[in-house]
């Protein structure tokens, strides 16, 4: 009887494997796996339950979020009103403590002191055990961000005068504090973190870019909480970092960089896809931005929750385009204040 059993077991394994291949491929083309829904109702139900509980928890946390260290203002604008506004939300957040700092410089620090940007650190969001957000067809944020970062690196390498470093070149788990350490250790002059957005309830596509700063936007805080998870920083260290922050000029520079990147990302993406929204540059307490001593931004270059966008992200040309827009934004920042460049820019 024994060999019979072994044979049956093998047949069963084979069946499971074949069905797995089939279901994976169904997901690639965006069709739901009907087969499994009828055949495996219980695990699926369990998963759904798990997800909805998870979602509720996240939402609940978001609305109750009250980080004492940030000057909190009740966020009243909902996602819908943001859509209508379609303007950078600079006007909405206006904490006085940084205002002076922000207004006091009209040109990038780099140019003011005649310093060159040599080392640029590119940070592909998530990785390894942390997939980031996952699209309906199974596309993982970590894979897309890594691919875009690699493309951006190749593009920037062509100029020859930047030293481009990546926080990760492979699909490896890398906690945020390690990324920060890397940026410090490699003496990076600029830090760009690439991420994808996920809006579970809205079938829209948005682009937004963050730089570090206190935020009063509940959605932003919620996002920050998500991106900060796994940072391995203690609260006291975090506070210390924030205090240090106030003294640096990084904020001003980061904002400039964020504005340049956001502008190029959005205006270019808009040309291809009219159905895309500009959520502007925002301040957010992302650990990865805070810990780095140099200008740092976090760009949410696309939206994985949007089905059409997920399809697009799976094409090489779209990822290359996103890298190109980031490159354009970066160069825009680096060339600001340069007389020749400004003249050209104004005539455009």
């Amino acid at each position: 009887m024994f060999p019979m059993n072994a044979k049956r077991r093998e047949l069963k394994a084979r069946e499971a494997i074949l069905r797995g291949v089939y279901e994976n491929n169904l997901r690639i083309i965006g069709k739901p796996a009907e087969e499994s829904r009828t055949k495996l109702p219980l695990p699926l139900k369990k998963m759904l339950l798990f997800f909805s509980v998870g979602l509720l928890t996240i939402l609940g946390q978001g609305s109750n979020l009250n980080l004492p260290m940030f000057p909190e203002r009740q966020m009243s604008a909902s996602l819908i009103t943001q859509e209508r506004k379609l303007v950078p939300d600079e006007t909405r957040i206006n904490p006085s403590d940084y205002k002076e700092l922000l207004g006091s410089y009209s040109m990038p620090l780099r140019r003011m002191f005649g310093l060159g940007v040599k080392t640029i650190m590119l940070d592909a969001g998530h990785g390894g055990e942390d997939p980031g957000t996952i699209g309906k067809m199974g596309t993982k944020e970590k894979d897309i961000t890594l691919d875009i970062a690699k493309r951006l690196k190749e593009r920037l390498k062509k100029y020859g005068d930047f030293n481009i470093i990546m926080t990760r070149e492979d699909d490896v788990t890398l906690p945020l504090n390690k990324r920060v350490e890397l940026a410090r250790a490699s003496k990076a002059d600029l830090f760009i973190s690439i991420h994808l957005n996920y809006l579970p309830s809205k079938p829209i596509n948005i682009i937004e870019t963050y730089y570090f700063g206190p935020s009063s936007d509940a959605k932003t805080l919620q996002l920050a909480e998500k991106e900060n998870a796994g940072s391995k920083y203690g609260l006291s260290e975090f506070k210390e970092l924030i205090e240090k922050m106030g003294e640096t000029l990084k904020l001003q520079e980061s904002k400039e960089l964020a504005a340049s990147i956001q502008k190029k990302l959005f205006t270019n993406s808009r040309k291809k896809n009219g159905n895309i929204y500009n959520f502007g540059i925002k301040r957010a307490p992302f650990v990865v931005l805070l810990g780095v001593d140099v200008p740092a931004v976090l760009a949410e270059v696309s939206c994985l929750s949007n089905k059409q966008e997920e399809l697009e992200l799976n094409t090489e040309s779209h990822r290359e385009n996103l890298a190109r827009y980031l490159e354009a934004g970066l160069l825009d920042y680096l060339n600001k204040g340069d007389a020749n460049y400004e003249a050209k820019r104004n005539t455009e």
Partner: protein
Amino acid sequence: MKQKETQSEGDILFVGIDLGTSRSSISTSNGARQWLQSYVGWPKDFISLQVVGKPVLFGSEALKHRLSLDLCRPLEHGVIKEGLEKNEEAVKEIIKYLIELAKPAPGQKIYAVVGVPADTLKVNKLAIRRAVSGFADSLMVVSEPFAVAYGLNLLNNSLVIDIGAGTTDLCIMHGAIPSEEDQRTITNAGDYIDEQLYSYLTEKYPNSKFNKNMVRQFKEKYSFVRELAEDIKVEIPVDGKPVMHDIKNEIKRACESILPALVETTAEMIARFDPEFQVKIKNNIVLAGGGSLIRGLREYLQEALKEYGQCTVTCVEDPLFAGSNGALKLAQDMPAKYWEPLK
């Protein structure tokens, strides 16, 4: 069984394709086995079109005429080339050409399973599906080491190490479709050896002229790790005159450059499993891909893993076709109802 009979009537041609960075191969249910180097070249201009006499060239022929062609190696790891539509176009051309080589009967439906390097699969699933769908009636895409494992019937408690050109893919099979944790990719593989060898040789023989293509040929002919009794000497021109060069040490160093990461990752992957299964997996390690042809590699790995306990490493018999044969087997075993929705 009934299904099988209706399928084998000849109205459907089952096709297994291994879309590799360096070489691509096809195995079909009509017995065809073909391969080519994954190069696609288009004539640069009108004159080069006159010279080569074809609108598109493949494999070694494309390499031979590379000076008059826009040459593309579409799945090359991490390299971004000018014109991306071209990459997708190149994949299309390769698939089209491979299927033509298999000579399907007129009117025959083509059901294809395509194996691609695990890393490529992650972000290019859709692009690959799109590239292939024009030439197949129904289609599934799978990761390369998985196709190899399936083809060798290593469904349970085994580890497949597929050393390709762009990447080395490791995949543990345990009776189910491998999840992400069961698969790992190392970016040190054949191309990396080429790069190392190239830099070692330039360093040692600064006055000798050679190119990447020659270096790859040296590797494919002489690769080895550990010890080798014979000498390795090749002819390389110096100031136009052919001169013999001793490249044995450089070959060894270059080939061994991929070993540390390989051993480390292998040990790591095995260690993740229940001790009881670890033993089974360790006795079922299979080397596949072009890298499995490196002499001494099997022994080296077996030796290096010894400190983790007894283990057995074998090499696939036919690395060139192991992937496409596995993909073909998948295609043939796949129940008809699964093919339907993927048209």
